[in-house]
């Protein structure tokens, strides 16, 4: 029986990164794909993101990154999630994410990485897989 409840996704940026184009585009893309988007926007530190994710009971946290701050904040973010006993998957996207970063991010526990080479239309499906696991072919 497929889960018909829409996926709730939190979209946020990290630290002082002000390049919002990616976050806004991702939010609209996911909303158009039928997900419920909680848009947290700019200027969020890990504590605020984790609190919002818990308060809003989201299925997945999506971080849009166009500065290098994600390299330093993700460890703190995962610690805070663990401390609250939350197992919400975290996905990260942005043009500044390189192939080497991708390996490092996955090792840290990031569930999906959307670098510049990933076509935008693949993102909703990847998020569905992250939240619901691989779907059987119909």
């Amino acid at each position: 029986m497929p889960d018909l409840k829409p996926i709730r996704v939190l979209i946020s940026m990290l630290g002082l990164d002000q390049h919002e184009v990616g976050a806004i585009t991702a939010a609209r893309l996911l909303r158009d794909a039928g997900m419920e988007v909680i848009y947290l926007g700019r200027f969020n530190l890990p504590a605020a993101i984790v609190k919002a994710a818990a308060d809003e009971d989201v299925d997945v946290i999506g971080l849009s990154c166009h500065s290098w701050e994600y390299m330093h904040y993700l460890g703190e973010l995962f610690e805070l999630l663990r401390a609250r006993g939350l197992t919400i998957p975290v996905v990260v996207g942005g043009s500044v994410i390189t192939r080497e970063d991708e390996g490092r991010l996955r090792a840290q526990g990031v569930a999906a990485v959307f670098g510049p080479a990933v076509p935008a239309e693949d993102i909703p499906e990847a998020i569905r897989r992250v939240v619901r696991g691989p779907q059987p072919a119909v």
Partner: protein
Amino acid sequence: MASDATAKTIYRPDDVAGLSYAEDLNDPGAYPYTRGARAARPKLGAWIQRELSGEGAPSRTNAQFKYLIDSGANGLDVIGDTPTMACLDPDHPASAHAVGTQGVSLCSLPDYRELYADLPLDGLTISHSLPASFGIAGLYLAAKERGIAPARLRGSTIQAPFYCEDCGYSIHMPFDLRVRLAADSIEFAAREMPKFHAFIEDTYYISEGGLDPVEEMALGFVEIRYIVRELLRRGLAIDSFAPRIAILVNCRMDFFTEIAKIRATRRLFARMLREEFGATDPRSLAVNIASHTSGLSLTAQQPVNNIVRGTVQALALALSGVQAIEVSGFDEAFRTPSPEAHLVGLRTQQVIQLEADVTKVMDPLGGSYYVEALTNEMEQRILALVERIEAMGDASGLCDNGWFRGLFQDAMERYAREIRDGERAQVGANIHRVPDDEDTLLREVAERKIEPCRERIDAIRAFKRARPAGDVAAALREVHRVARGADNLMAPIIAAMMAGATMGEITGVMRTAYGRVYDPFGMTACPI
């Protein structure tokens, strides 16, 4: 863009039938300045060639400046890191991982001394992508300390009071304070630094969200008109400050549209200033246009293609007769420019100037049926949108109720959709792609990261501990007092910097004077 959809494949004399050479074009340097702001080319032989720079501590950026000057740059453009652009000190907890990575970290008077050390401040032009009041105060003080008269300083600073909160330069200030700081600093510079362009209308960053060229210029003109009216309301004469207004435009890939946009902008500005605002000084009517090639048009895929894009855009700008050009780094999708990208940007400009020889004749496209028809069309469409926006009511209301933000969000979404759907071709990104593992040329340079400059955090903490605390507190109280009244804020800001106060502190007490919290992140306490 929309005009291309209706464009014909050939233009004929009847497309410009009503065009009058004397009234609509005229020679470069003559009203309405469509063909150029100046009658003759500058002594430099071309435009000001500069590249956006700034990383790490001020001393590292100073070394970057010297490298660029040695490489042939005849102007500088300094950009602050994200904490600096947000008016946060490097020791603010939210700054920790962003100090010096995407620009230079600047917050105190000694920082500006270090930034400008050894530079011939009265012999080159320095453009500032910094919170304007602080960039002006820092340059003014650094020059004075070295015995250089501020009246001799050349260069510019962007002013972004309308759209900064929505478009990437958020400083967490209310609209009225943002406009006041812009007007205060323009008024101050008009008196103290009369050769300095203290009012650059930055339509570049507006456009980089994905707005089209008509929207870009219309929003720019809405802001210019508002600030001009504010300065007139203060009792300033139009010709006392209008010569110091300049516009920093974007240049994307729509080659002829961008050229027409720049020509239309010069004409529109001249007509507006003369007919509507009563300016008579020719320098008030002939607007200087500076330009950057578009970062948004660049791709993370196949970064080498970005060099070609920069060349095409820089050529359009050279043909438009702009006063200054910066070529965005080929690594723009990843970072602020690397030394390699800096050099490529400069060399692009030098090849266009010295080898292609396209500047021998001014406005070489003038008289083209197509370019003139497109220039007319751009002028009409920009003006129509300005009128539409102004008819909607006071701009402060449009800012505060999110109307502009909605416009930016729609534009971002529209641009991304055009790329996604292939409606707007991006070679290497949505057409003619190569497999990611074969996409290696220049990738290594583009993907190199800069570590946050954590020494800066310790250095600023030490600086703050060593200051005479009483002087700092007194100076901050004075900033707060003046901010609650109506006097010009530049004098107390300058005095506070001299007393050792930092940008974060000065900004914070101005916020509290306007009923806002000292620290928008709620992480630091107000020192007074």
